[in-house]
């Protein structure tokens, strides 16, 4: 189970990596493993949409489950990784780099502080 230390994590298994005043978001390695083979990604938000922390950003479907991706931060959606709609398996293979879901212009940087560090998230996953 991989957890990268260059980003922060939400209890609902999303990560955010801050770049200047934006945050790139995605799902953790633990999440993609739980879902198993992902077959479809549906984006609920579009570029230009506002998004609140905790709001549903996308839905991920696998053969045996469907899960909501909740945005770990608030802001305006800048970009979506729409390539995932054609090759959803990338989310399983590389959830931290190629499998990024969206880029959000942050409206409230203090929210980052509420999220978990990598080691805390790892312990949290082990306890589940």
């Amino acid at each position, binding site marked *: 189970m991989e957890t990268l230390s260059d980003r922060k994590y939400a209890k609902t298994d999303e990560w955010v990596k801050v770049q200047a005043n934006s945050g790139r978001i995605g799902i953790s390695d633990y999440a993609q493993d739980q879902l198993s083979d992902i*077959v*479809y990604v*549906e984006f*609920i938000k579009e570029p230009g949409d506002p998004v609140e922390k905790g709001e549903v950003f996308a839905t991920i*479907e*696998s*053969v*045996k*489950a*469907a899960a*909501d991706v909740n945005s770990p931060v608030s802001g305006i959606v800048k970009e979506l990784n729409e390539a995932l709609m054609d090759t959803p398996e990338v989310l399983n293979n590389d959830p931290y780099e190629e499998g990024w879901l969206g880029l959000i212009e942050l409206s409230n940087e203090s929210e980052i502080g509420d999220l978990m560090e990598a080691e805390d998230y790892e312990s949290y996953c082990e306890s589940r």
Partner: protein
Amino acid sequence: MYIPHTDQERQEMLATIGVESIEDLFQDIPDKYRFPHLDLPDGISEMEVLDQMKLLADANYSTNDFVNFLGAGAYDHYVPAAVDMLLRRGDFFSAYTPYQPEISQGTLQAIFEYQTLITNLTGMEISNASHYDGATAAAETVITAYYHFRKKRNTVILSPYINPEYIAVIKTYLQAARDINIIIPDIKSPAHFADTAMDLISEDTALVFFQYPDFMGNLFDYTKMIRKVHETGGLTASIVYPLALGLIKSPSTMGVDFIVGEAQSLGLPLSFGGPYIGFFSTKKEYIRKISGRIVGETVDEDNRRGYVLTLTAREQHIRREKATSNICTNQGLNALAVAIYLSLLGKTGLKKVASICYQKAHYLADQISSIKGFALLNQAPFFNEFVIRCPKKASVFSKKLSEAGILAGYDLANFSDNNANELLVAVTEKITKEDMDYFVETLQEVQNA
């Protein structure tokens, strides 16, 4: 009956479990309520139950005892012998839902073929494995459209010439839905729906829904209306009489987004209204939005072609409260019947039976409208069902005709008080010229009397 245990086996089993008697297995039932008396008759043998059921069946007058012109959503078509014979195979009817695909390839492939046949018939791109009936398929269509727009469009426009029972079911399904607004416009006649709908559509319209042929039998081309709905960003759907599509062009040629309806006419007996089968077809882009089971093709570990239930993540057992529908089943055996019927009739046969229905219906319509006092009300082309206006209340005629062994058609007093003098008459390939001439003669006699 059907319980194989011998006394000895029961004793051995109880001993293994470690209890004295079967009653001991029910200690967790509250004393007060345990082993109640059932005020019901004693069990009977197979011979006796057959006699009793025959008594009940014989207490009916079936369509075998009448010349039958009743349609209005259930049609008396001939079902080829091979259909029922194949349905009697225990490998089909005593099998369960194909959750273990490796040992359910028969069911899965049959449904896959059913899905294909429906798309071929309707001209749409995909079909699911079926809904309970045409009415519930229609209700699911409205729900699909509503969720498609993520509840941002709240208006649904229904043609008043959709089968009234279907409209009733749509309303039932939506009664608990927060904020869907159903509009059923008041229109002068069936021909006015397209124009009225075009005036009513707005950015809030999720769906415009019509029936083809409509409940009064009329065929209209809705291309212009559908285009306008699409321009405002909404969706369109049509309820269709599938057997008509053997002869008549499908609304898919008009650009409609969903084609749904009742497929009883494709190989199922009348059976007093059920079980029937709702078919549901649409464009590929909506595949993830629709409810109901879907079968897809894949391969196994040896790269052999096989079939599985797919896109199950939409369904209730995974989405639970986030599912758009709670539907847990399809009409498996009935979908098989439809697949067999369409395979048997094929390209030639379906066109043939549809043509026969069309021609016979038009003969009868001509004959009836030539009786003084009676008129054919359909201004638009019709397929095999049409409306006759009678000089007096339709019930006067249908009662007398019933006594003469004729089920004259559906009394449209049931539709509205304004239609009380009207009969909805359906003709299928089972009706002969003699039957129709007898109908006309009898009508004439009643009229003269």
